[in-house]
C-alpha cells in the first residue's frame, strides 16, 4: 500500500474516531444494555408477578377484558400481552386519550395482572429497560429529530472509522491471527485491535444497520426530492415502503361474533406451533375496528410477522403479513432485525451484548490511544494541559457511563413510589451521576482516578443485589425458590460486573507505579 495513502487513512481514522468518540461510547453501552431490555424491565418493576406455570389463555382474556372495560372504557386501542419467554407476565395496556376537562394528557397506560386471581397489580412508575435502551438513539434533553441527526452523524463517523481501520490493517485479514504477536509491548494497541478486529462483522453490521434505521431522517432530502415534502408525504412514503405481501382469507365466523375471544381461539387453532404474545384491539368503536395479533419474538428471524382480523363486508377476513413487497424493503427489514436482535435466543443474546461491550471497549481504548499518542509527542504547556483535561474526562466517561447506569437502577429502588415524576427523575439521576463522575475525575490526583473510579463502579454494582434485598421482597434465595429467573439473572449479573470492576481495580493498583496514565507505547524491558 502506498505510504501516503496509509498515512492519510491513519489520520482519517484517528480524527473520525475522536470527534464523537464519547457520544459513540455512550451509544454503544446503552445500546448493548438494551439487548436485555426485558430482563431490566422485570427488575425495575419488582411488583410484577411472574407467570411460571401454564395458564388458561381464555381465562386470562376474561380478566383482562374485565379490567379494560373499567379502566379503558373509551380508549380506541387495547392491548393484552400474554406470557412470553422473556416477559413472563400478563399485562394490559391502552391508549389514554387527552381529556381537557380532567386535564389528562395523551398517554399509554399499562397494568400488570396477577396470574392467580386476575387482579390488577400496582406497579411503580418507571422508565424501565426500555427508556434505558432508547437513550442510545433518542439521547435525552434534546428534541427527537436533533437526537436522530446527531446519532446518524456519529454512526457515519463510526462507519468511516471502521472502514479506514480495516484499510490500515489490511494485513490483519490476509493473515488472520498473526497480528497478535506483540506480547506485553504496545498493550493498549493490542487490546484496541482485539476489540475491533475479532467482532468486526458485528461492528460493521450494527453501524450500517443503525444508519439504515435512521435514514428516514438523515436522508430525508432524498424523499423530499423524489416523492414529496412535508409530513403527510413522508408518512405516506413510509406506509408504501413498508407495505407487506399479505395473504387474505375469509373466515367461517359471522361478523357479529368477532371478538377477542374468537380471535384468540382462531389464532390458537391456525398457528399451533407459535406462541401468541399480544392481542390488540385497534380503532375500537369505529367502523374500522380490527384485531391484531403478534407472536413471541423468539420465533426466528423470518416468521409470520403479524396477523390482522377485520370485518369486510359481510364476512370476517384474516390478513397475514409475511414479507415486504419491495426488494430493498426486504433487505432493510433484514438489517433492522439484525440490529434489534429480537429473534435472538439466550446464546445469541449474550453474544450480541458481549459484542456491544467489545465495541464500547474498542471506542474507549481508541480514545486512550489518542491521549497516549499526544502525551508522547508532548509539546507546548497549553497542549499538555489540554490533553490532561481530555484524559480526565475520558476516565470519567469510560467508567462513568457504567456507574451512571447502575445509579439509574439504584434510583429505581430509592426514589419514593409516591413521587409522581419518579420515572423522569430516574433518568435525571443517570445524567447527574455521569456529570458527578466526570467532575470527580477532574479534581482528583491524576494517578488515582482509574483506581478510584473502578472501585466506585465495583461497589455500586456489587451492592445492587443487596439493595434489592433490602428494598423489596426479592432476595437471591427467594428468586431461586420462585423460579424468577429474570430477577435472579439480573442480580447475579450485577454481582458479576461488580466483581469484574473490582478485579480491574486490583490490577490497576498493582500497576500503579508504571501507571496507565503514563506512556505505555515505549517498550518496557520485560
Amino acid at each position: 500500500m502506498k505510504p501516503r495513502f496509509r498515512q492519510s487513512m491513519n489520520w482519517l481514522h484517528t480524527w473520525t474516531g475522536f470527534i464523537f468518540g464519547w457520544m459513540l461510547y455512550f451509544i454503544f453501552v446503552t445500546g448493548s444494555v438494551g439487548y436485555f431490555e426485558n430482563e431490566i424491565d422485570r427488575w425495575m418493576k419488582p411488583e410484577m408477578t411472574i407467570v411460571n406455570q401454564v395458564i388458561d389463555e381464555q381465562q386470562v382474556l376474561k380478566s383482562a377484558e374485565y379490567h379494560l372495560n373499567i379502566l379503558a372504557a373509551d380508549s380506541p386501542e387495547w392491548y393484552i400481552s400474554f406470557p412470553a419467554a422473556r416477559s413472563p407476565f400478563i399485562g394490559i395496556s391502552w391508549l389514554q386519550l387527552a381529556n381537557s376537562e380532567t386535564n389528562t394528557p395523551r398517554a399509554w397506560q399499562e397494568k400488570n395482572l396477577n396470574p392467580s386471581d386476575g387482579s390488577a397489580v400496582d406497579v411503580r412508575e418507571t422508565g424501565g429497560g426500555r427508556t434505558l435502551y432508547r437513550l442510545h438513539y433518542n439521547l435525552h434533553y434534546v428534541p427527537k429529530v436533533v437526537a436522530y441527526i446527531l446519532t446518524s452523524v456519529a454512526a457515519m463517523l463510526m462507519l468511516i472509522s471502521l472502514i479506514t481501520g480495516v484499510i490500515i490493517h489490511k494485513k490483519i485479514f490476509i493473515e488472520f491471527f498473526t497480528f497478535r504477536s506483540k506480547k506485553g509491548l504496545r498493550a493498549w494497541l493490542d487490546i484496541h485491535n482485539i476489540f475491533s478486529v475479532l467482532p468486526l462483522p458485528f461492528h460493521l453490521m450494527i453501524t450500517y444497520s443503525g444508519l439504515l434505521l435512521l435514514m428516514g431522517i438523515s436522508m430525508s432530502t432524498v424523499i423530499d426530492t423524489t416523492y414529496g415534502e412535508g409530513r403527510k408525504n413522508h408518512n405516506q412514503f413510509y406506509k408504501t415502503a413498508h407495505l407487506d405481501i399479505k395473504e387474505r382469507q375469509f373466515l367461517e365466523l359471522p361478523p357479529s361474533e368477532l371478538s377477542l375471544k374468537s380471535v384468540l381461539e382462531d389464532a390458537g387453532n391456525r398457528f399451533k406451533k407459535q406462541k401468541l404474545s399480544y392481542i390488540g384491539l385497534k380503532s375500537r368503536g369505529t367502523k374500522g375496528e380490527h384485531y391484531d395479533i403478534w407472536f413471541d419474538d423468539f420465533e426466528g428471524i423470518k416468521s409470520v410477522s403479524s396477523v390482522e382480523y377485520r370485518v369486510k363486508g359481510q364476512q370476517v377476513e384474516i390478513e397475514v403479513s409475511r414479507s415486504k413487497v419491495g426488494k430493498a424493503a426486504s433487505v432493510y427489514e433484514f438489517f433492522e432485525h439484525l440490529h434489534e436482535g429480537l429473534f435472538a435466543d439466550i446464546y445469541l443474546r449474550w453474544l450480541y451484548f458481549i459484542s456491544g461491550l467489545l465495541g464500547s471497549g474498542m471506542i474507549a481504548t481508541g480514545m486512550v490511544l489518542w491521549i497516549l499518542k499526544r502525551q508522547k509527542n508532548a509539546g507546548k504547556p497549553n497542549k499538555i494541559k489540554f490533553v490532561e483535561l481530555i484524559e480526565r474526562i475520558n476516565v470519567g466517561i469510560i467508567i462513568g457511563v457504567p456507574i451512571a447506569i447502575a445509579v439509574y437502577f439504584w434510583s429505581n429502588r430509592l426514589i419514593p413510589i409516591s413521587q409522581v415524576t419518579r420515572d423522569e427523575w430516574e433518568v435525571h439521576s443517570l445524567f447527574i451521576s455521569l456529570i458527578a463522575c466526570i467532575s470527580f475525575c477532574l479534581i482528583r490526583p491524576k494517578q488515582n482516578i482509574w483506581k478510584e473510579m473502578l472501585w466506585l463502579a465495583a461497589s455500586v454494582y456489587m451492592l445492587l443485589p443487596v439493595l434489592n434485598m433490602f428494598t423489596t421482597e426479592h432476595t437471591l434465595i427467594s428468586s431461586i425458590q420462585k423460579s424468577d429467573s429474570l430477577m435472579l439473572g439480573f442480580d447475579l449479573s450485577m454481582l458479576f460486573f461488580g466483581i469484574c470492576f473490582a478485579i480491574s481495580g486490583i490490577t490497576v493498583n498493582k500497576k500503579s507505579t508504571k501507571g496507565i496514565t503514563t506512556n505505555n507505547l515505549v517498550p518496557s524491558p520485560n
Partner: protein
Amino acid sequence: MIFSEPVLIILLILLLMVGFTLLSLSLSRHYSHVTDKRQRLANKTKLLLRFIGYSLLIISAIISEKVWGIALGGVYWFATTMLVATVLSIILTYKPRWLSFIPLYFHR
C-alpha cells in the same frame, strides 16, 4: 433433528474452535509459539492442518444452514466465529502452551 438446540450450539462451537485452532497453527508464527522453538513447521503438516481446518469450517457452515436456515444459520455461524476467534486469540497470546498437544499429535 435428533439433537436439541443447545447441543447443536455446542457442536457448532466445538467444530469452529477446532477448525480455527488448526488453521492458526498452520501459520509458522503461531506454530513456533505453541511448540518448542526448535520445531519447524513441516510443509506436510501445514497442508494437513489447513485442509482439516478449512473442512471443519465448511462442515460447520453447512450444518448451520441445515439446522437454522440460511439467514439465522448465518447469524449463528458468524456470531460463533467471533466468539471462537476471541477466545483463541486470548489463548494464543497468554497461554499458547495449552495448545502444545496438537503439534505433537501431528508430528508423528
